[in-house]
């Protein structure tokens, strides 16, 4: 993974054509803002899943991007290749696609559960550093298998909105971006509601004090598995929307998996152990990145093309200099 870091940095989000076509001044700013919020929603989902896994199990999950790619690939497979379950039940195009996506997301959640059971559960009680290295291994394993399924080409996820653009008073907004924001908002509300439920409260309790949670009769192993399931499902949603217009023409080997690493600045920005911080960090990074792409493009001859790709990391560095535990993270010294 580290060897391919230059590739990771070189591969940056394409400048949103909708924003570029939105003229200048305020309209351009608003179009940029919407585009940034949409990108931020994807980062926020990735960061949220990452933080949920980290909080519940103290595991830094380097396989998060690979899992996101699994979700995107499965959606492409079910929606485009199989047309399942759409071909069985019919109905409007968007409904068929959504059902395929739901099936893919649920299957990705199962992949998360299986990964936890196979590789993470036996490591309970081992040093966290070892577990983090194991997730690096999981990343390579899952990515290699998914890459093999994806093949060398680009696999469109087959979303019904395609390159459609809405023009609202001169502000041009890609339809997929509105969908992204709505779906992400729904997912975040669902996560917030889950944290108020019986199991959700148990998960927060486990995250705070495992032994005390066990003393209450909470099955800590089940909570661990569940956190991986939820994390994987959120990663899958993010992976799907990272693979649609205008970000990417579809699922691509390695590229889609590495996209998720760009959410890492969002996690650090918000604080590794802050669920709210992950969401805020995601949106901040998304907006900053699109703003940089929009307003810095005239200086491409100085800064180089794709400068917006490193802006999130600059923000992350800046935050780490001032608040090493992130904007909302717990102020404590943690041994990793």
């Amino acid at each position, binding site marked *: 993974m580290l060897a391919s870091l230059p590739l990771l940095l070189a591969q940056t989000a394409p400048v949103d054509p909708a924003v570029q076509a939105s003229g200048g001044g305020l309209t351009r700013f608003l179009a940029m803002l919407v585009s940034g919020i949409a990108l931020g929603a994807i980062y926020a989902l990735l960061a949220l899943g990452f933080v949920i896994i980290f909080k519940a199990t103290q595991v830094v999950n380097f396989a998060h991007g690979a899992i996101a790619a699994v979700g995107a690939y499965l959606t492409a497979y079910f929606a485009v290749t199989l047309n399942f379950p759409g071909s069985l039940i019919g109905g409007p195009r968007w409904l068929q696609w959504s059902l395929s996506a739901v099936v893919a997301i649920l299957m990705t959640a199962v992949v998360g559960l299986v990964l936890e059971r196979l590789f993470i559960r036996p490591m309970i009680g081992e040093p966290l550093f070892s577990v983090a290295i194991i997730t690096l291994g999981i990343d390579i394993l899952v990515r290699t298998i998914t890459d093999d399924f994806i093949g060398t080409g680009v696999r469109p996820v087959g979303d019904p909105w395609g390159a459609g653009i809405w023009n609202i008073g001169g502000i041009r907004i890609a339809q997929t971006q509105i969908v992204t924001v709505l779906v992400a908002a729904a997912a975040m509300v669902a996560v917030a509601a889950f944290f108020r439920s019986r199991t959700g409260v148990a998960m*927060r*309790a486990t995250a*705070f004090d495992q032994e*005390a949670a*066990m*003393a209450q009769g*909470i099955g800590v192993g089940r909570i661990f598995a569940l956190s991986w399931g939820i994390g994987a499902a959120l990663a899958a949603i993010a992976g799907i929307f990272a693979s649609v217009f205008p970000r990417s023409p579809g699922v691509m080997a390695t590229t889609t998996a590495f996209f998720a690493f760009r959410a890492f600045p969002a996690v650090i920005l918000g604080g590794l152990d802050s669920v709210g911080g992950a969401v805020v960090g995601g949106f901040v990074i998304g907006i900053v990145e699109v703003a940089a792409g929009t307003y810095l493009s005239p200086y491409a001859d100085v800064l180089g093309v794709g400068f917006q790709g490193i802006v999130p990391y600059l923000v992350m560095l800046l935050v780490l200099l001032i608040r090493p535990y992130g904007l909302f993270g717990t102020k404590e010294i943690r041994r990793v």
Partner: protein
Amino acid sequence: MLEVANLEVVYNDVILVLRGLSLTVPDGKIVALLGANGAGKTTTLRAISGLLDVHEGDITKGSIRFDGEDVTEAAASDIVRLGIKQVLEGRRIFAELTVDENLRTGAYTNKDKQSVTDSYERVMDLFPRLKERRKSVAGYMSGGEQQMLAIGRALMSNPKLLVLDEPSLGLAPLLVQQIRDIIVDINKQGTSVLLIEQNANMALSISDYGYIMETGKIVMDGEAKKLLGDEDVQEFYLGLHGEEGERKSFRDVKHYKRRKRWLS
């Protein structure tokens, strides 16, 4: 009824902490387990409530039976389901959660809504203080309130046996009395109690039976009243030395050496 027989516990495969400990907690009674630091009191509790794994401990010999069922190797969650609930030493409340949420975690194993509501009412009756602070974040409460919350949380699953690890730890004398009265109340409502304490006076004053342990073994046991009157217990745990006003010379004090090891 809880029956612990000849329990041997080893930490990290080498550190022998309990060497054949036996004790019984009959239904509806309060039993006190006393001992100096490092005697193995907390280890005994961990073994009973299935929390040894977390600390790399293993039960190598002996058995624990609760209501006739063998729970020696049972998982913590199953033990809670059977009706043993432990209040951990140092309260260990979930500081980031609200009081209500803390109580809900205590009711995790209890899926019957009506019974959860009943337990909640019971806890609120026992601890009116918690009722006032239902929505506040648990970490901001005082030590006494946190201890009440820890006991209340344990009661939420309606346990048959409540295991308390030093409930008076770090509390002001007035609060210790309050906690003491609450333990008596809980016991009167039909819950058996196994109580670990450094505060031997408080523990024995409310217990029916007492065990005294030293280096992983029970060295003395008997009716709580009998223990309270015992000369050795008075000297080593209650801090009483003979007649009042009697000055002790160092030579007199030294005589404890003669009794440093009790024969059981």
